[in-house]
């Protein structure tokens, strides 16, 4: 039994149309949600109000101390019950692998994006904040107009690097039988007994995408550093 290129070619449309679409959509949604939620967490962590910063700190430390795989399981099996408890329904609510994955990754990645944004916010000189306040801006205006745009710009390469990790980590939805890129390949591999071909192909695709993105980040970093 030689290496069968044909099975890859035949399964290509399915792999990309179903699998890669899932993977990319999940990555983009979790990135967007994660950055927004993470930025809020970062602002909370830096808050002068102790309870607020402790709460955010506890959340971030919790998420960063549990294996992602466990969080995925935990959400998938527990969220239906929590949802039922919140809505007061007697049956566990149906949430599905897709929604569960989106929520899990958003909440998990937010902890990591939070730490990046926190470093970004702290990198902005105190005088910039003073300057905003001195003009009569309030905390939210100073954050939105002055601190966050600069912090975001400074941290863009790191945020994108984290997103590349997120892109790879989404393959873990395999464990809740979601059909992401890896999941789709695994299904074909098992159906046609072409494990070597399929898993090799998946590895090559992940490598090409991740490596090109990291080159892009490097280029971006150099451009930002010039200014």
């Amino acid at each position: 039994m030689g290496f069968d290129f044909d099975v890859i070619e035949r399964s290509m449309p399915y792999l990309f149309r179903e699998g890669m679409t899932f993977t990319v959509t999940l990555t983009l949604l979790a990135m967007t949600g994660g950055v927004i939620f993470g930025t809020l967490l970062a602002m909370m962590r830096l808050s002068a109000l102790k309870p607020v910063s402790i709460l955010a700190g506890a959340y971030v430390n919790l998420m960063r101390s549990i294996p992602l795989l466990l969080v995925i399981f935990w959400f998938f099996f527990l969220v239906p019950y929590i949802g039922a408890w919140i809505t007061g329904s007697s049956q566990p609510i149906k949430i599905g692998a897709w929604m569960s994955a989106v929520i899990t990754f958003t909440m998990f990645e937010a902890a990591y994006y939070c730490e990046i944004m926190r470093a970004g916010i702290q990198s902005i000189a105190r005088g910039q904040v003073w300057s905003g306040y001195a003009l009569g801006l309030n905390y939210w205006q100073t954050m939105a107009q002055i601190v966050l745009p600069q912090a975001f710009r400074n941290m863009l390469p790191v945020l994108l690097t984290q997103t590349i990790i997120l892109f790879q980590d989404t393959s873990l939805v395999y464990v809740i039988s979601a059909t992401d890129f890896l999941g789709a390949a695994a299904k074909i591999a098992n159906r046609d007994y072409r494990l070597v071909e399929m898993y090799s192909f998946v590895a090559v695709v992940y490598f090409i995408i991740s490596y090109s993105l990291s080159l892009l980040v490097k280029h971006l970093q150099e451009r930002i550093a010039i200014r």
Partner: protein
Amino acid sequence: MISLKNVSKWYGSFQVLNDCSTEVAKGEVVVVCGPSGSGKSTLIKCVNALEPFQKGEILVDGVAVGDPKTNLPKLRSRVGMVFQHFELFPHMTVTQNLTLGQVKALGRSETEAREKGLKLLERVGLLGHKDKYPGQLSGGQQQRVAIARALSMDPIAMLFDEPTSALDPEMINEVLDVMVELAREGMTMMVVTHEMGFARKVAHRVIFMDAGRIIEDAKKEEFFGTPRSERAQIFLSKILHH
């Protein structure tokens, strides 16, 4: 206009301000000087509540700065401040720097804010740079934009925190010229600076601080004539030597 009564401030157990009291009347120009670490920058930052203080009272146009009920953004929008390191917003153009506060804090329209901002930019001689970013300007130019930005808010008083100490020597005068002009127009000013030439030219009073205390608070003529404290005499002899 600005009145400080027995203001004290601590960083942990270290006392930075010790029982400071003074007044700045409307239209008055008061220069605050003293060796580094004497608390003069901290004092001026207390006036618009950028730094909190633990004891005493500060009134700006009758409003108590230390009162938790005071609307600080509103109060600050009425007091202009110029910083040692300019603190223009590097991600915005000069024009955007000039309009941000007017639009967000004073609720002016973009058009109105722009018109006002550009008028003041022209006044500091930088209209040609309106579309540049702060990073493209020299230090002196940036500081003049910062002054225009503060003035665009139509402040009742201006605070200057060592406005020329981060500048190259040849740029100091272009900034001082703007400040002298402002003083002669009758702006109420509190200026932390080592520029004694500026103090001689336009100040009404000079405050000398050391180790968190106001040691001397005298009319300009008195201060430069015969400072009463030995500490101020030594300080003056050192910085007026050259």
